[in-house]
């Protein structure tokens, strides 16, 4: 009987797919109505990164950083994956670690939204709360302290300074966009947080065709509300950022990005996060400068993680 069951299981081994094999290969969606209304001379294409199993673009670098840690022997089963992130990278670590069987500890400011905390806990991540007054910097310091105390206990991927971060995009996001646009992409628009997406995808696209314009998107002020993005002038510049790479940097206000998020939901049926709104806002600014073009934007995550953000309640 038992052998019969085993044989049956074996016979069906080829069915279904491994979850982690679903990281990447996201859809490239056309924004038909917004382009028609505001920029009919260009093609607006959005890379739907929320399709990744962890719900954001961060699955790509997180998976690659953890795999590189395994290959180099720095990440072993007895190690705890440790990082400071209230955002999508934390969720990506937690999801991948659940699949691979690692422990994850994340330092997060105590004022992170309740839904974030619940997502992280649902995947089994252990949370260390730091003071809200210090925002993510407090979490970063706590992680550095823990790591300095017991470096042997942890694997600390350090996404801001880890080359595997941008290489993930160099190896996947870049080639995907090239193929999905049949090489016709003219502009690539991405927000700057760790800068991994822009640097990795950008380097690949420039290699295919040096004429492709790389557009970096930053918040317009150090004090902003765009989760995941950095105003580089006032921030610790990530080690992997290559300032010389983007052809242009556009500065988008928090409110403009919020307006675009609402527009995307209501006109295109796309519920996305604020950084996607910032990318669309930047692409539409670029559209005013050019006569034609194929503009590819990165839409890093979906909007369900931001439903408790107050801008949804405001009129407009």
């Amino acid at each position, binding site marked *: 009987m038992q052998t019969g069951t085993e044989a049956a299981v074996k016979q069906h081994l080829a069915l279904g797919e491994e979850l982690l094999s679903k990281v990447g290969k996201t859809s490239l969606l056309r924004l038909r109505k917004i382009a028609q209304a505001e920029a009919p001379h260009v093609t607006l294409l959005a890379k739907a990164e929320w399709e990744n199993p962890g719900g954001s673009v961060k699955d790509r670098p997180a998976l690659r950083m953890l795999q590189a840690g395994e290959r180099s022997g720095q990440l072993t089963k007895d190690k705890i994956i440790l990082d400071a992130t209230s955002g999508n990278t934390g969720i990506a670590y937690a999801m991948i670690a659940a699949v691979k069987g690692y422990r994850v500890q994340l330092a997060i400011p105590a004022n992170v939204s309740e839904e974030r905390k619940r997502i992280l806990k649902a995947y089994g991540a252990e949370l260390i709360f730091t003071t809200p*007054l210090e*925002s993510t910097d407090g979490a970063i310091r706590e992680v550095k302290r823990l790591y300095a105390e017991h470096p042997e206990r942890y694997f600390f991927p350090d996404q801001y300074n880890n080359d595997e971060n941008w290489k993930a995009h160099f190896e996947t996001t870049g080639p995907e966009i090239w193929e999905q646009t049949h090489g016709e992409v003219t502009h690539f628009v991405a927000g700057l947080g760790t800068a991994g997406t822009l640097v990795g995808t950008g380097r690949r696209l420039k290699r295919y065709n040096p004429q492709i314009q790389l557009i970096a998107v930053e918040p317009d*002020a*150090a*004090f*902003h*509300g765009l989760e*995941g993005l950095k105003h580089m002038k*006032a921030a610790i510049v990530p080690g992997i950022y290559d300032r010389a790479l983007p052809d242009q940097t556009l500065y988008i206000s*928090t409110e403009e990005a919020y307006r675009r998020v609402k527009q995307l939901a209501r006109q295109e049926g796309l519920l996305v996060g604020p950084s996607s709104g910032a990318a669309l806002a930047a692409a539409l600014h670029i559209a005013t400068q050019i006569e034609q073009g194929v503009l590819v934007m990165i839409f890093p995550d979906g909007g369900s993680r931001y439903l408790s953000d107050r801008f949804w309640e405001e009129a407009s």
Partner: protein
Amino acid sequence: MTATILLPTALQAYANKRETFTVNSATTVGDALTRLVAQHAALKQHLFDDTGKLRSFVNIFVNEEDIRAQRGLATPINDGDELAIVPSVAGGADLSNEEIKRYSRHLIMPEVGMAGQRKLKEAKVLLVGMGGLGSPLGLYLAAAGVGKLGLVDMDKVDFTNLQRQILYTTPDVGKPKLQAAKEHLQAINPHIEIELHETRLSSDNALEIFKPYDIIIDGTDNFPTRYLVNDACVLLGKPNVYGSIFRFEGQASVFDARKGPCYRCLYPEPPPPGLVPSCAEGGVLGILPGLIGVIQATEAIKIILGKPDTLVGRLLLINALKMRFRELQLKKDGACPICGPKRTIMKLIDYEQFCGLPGAHAQQPEPTDERQGWEIAPQELETLLKNGQDVRVIDVREPHEWDICHIEGAQLIPLSEFTERMHELNSAEPIVLHCKSGGRSWKALQILREAGFTKLKNLKGGITAWAEDVDPQMPTY
């Protein structure tokens, strides 16, 4: 009724770099914010939208409670309340509660305070050399909360270091200094960042290594590196906090060519090689680098805090044996080749050559050919002595060195007394001269040769080689 509003780093630029704002007689949060933007108009657009509403991503906490969980802008405030403005994402470089506790003895002094402690946290200081001076420098600057410390050294910890290099412990012997230094400094203060530059500082890499730092502290022990550090600091316009030590005496100053003299204004030319002995040759009181290093650390902290009255333009001379502190006024040299108006040095040069040294990797002068035929190896001497050969062993070191160790049967005639006591020797007897490593005994040999002695040998490598090759029980120093 007085309340304090704490501004995040991101907003300080719009409030004349203020970190706090005090409001009197405001009864609600809305009141307090109105007064804040009345005073600092540039803040208004960052906090409120066009319709005068608080921007949706701006959070206000009263004593760590979010006002949105209370009565919003109508939340009442009481005397002594603290209002914090926090964006919903990404904060600035502020101090955590743990850091506030750690630095409390700084924070309660108005000369440092929160503002000064934040400056310390944002400061980047490079320590060139992690030896006697670098040890107290590292310990105190790390403890004080200097946000980034760069360390330059490439030595390993040696037993002879432990007498004064208090950053290292006995189990560290044999480890690379930087590795041990980082462990100890990070244990003292996990809140700071430590960057290691495990390399030999040279004209090729100095500018690149110095560039990211605000202050360079010279804790080196040789002239080529001192001139290199000076010139690189002048070229980059950075302050060079100088210290040097020898036996019981030390010097300290701050060379900042933008405000005063540089090291070359004080010492235009290096001394001839060999004239000024190193600590390894001349010795040093273990406490002295502590004294000087702590003075350097004090000056670095004052520079970071922006305090006047640093050692710019002054050279502090310390004699620990007499316990006297003296001060010399230093003037900028109008003819200084690097910081003067007619400068001739436009980029870093070859400092080994400038200091008359043969090259980067040949610091110990190799015995020249002239010594050939006059030398005897330790094993050869041992054989002679064992066979009962008639040979006199003369130790030309100083009596305090003799007390550390000596070869049995040897006679002590210090080089300093050699000419007067030469008559104690018999030119008919074979004589083997030795010192610590062969230099002084070579000089003694010349004196005897000129006096007509011929049966002379110099012990190759001195008593140090003897201890290594013949008598492993003998201590080395």
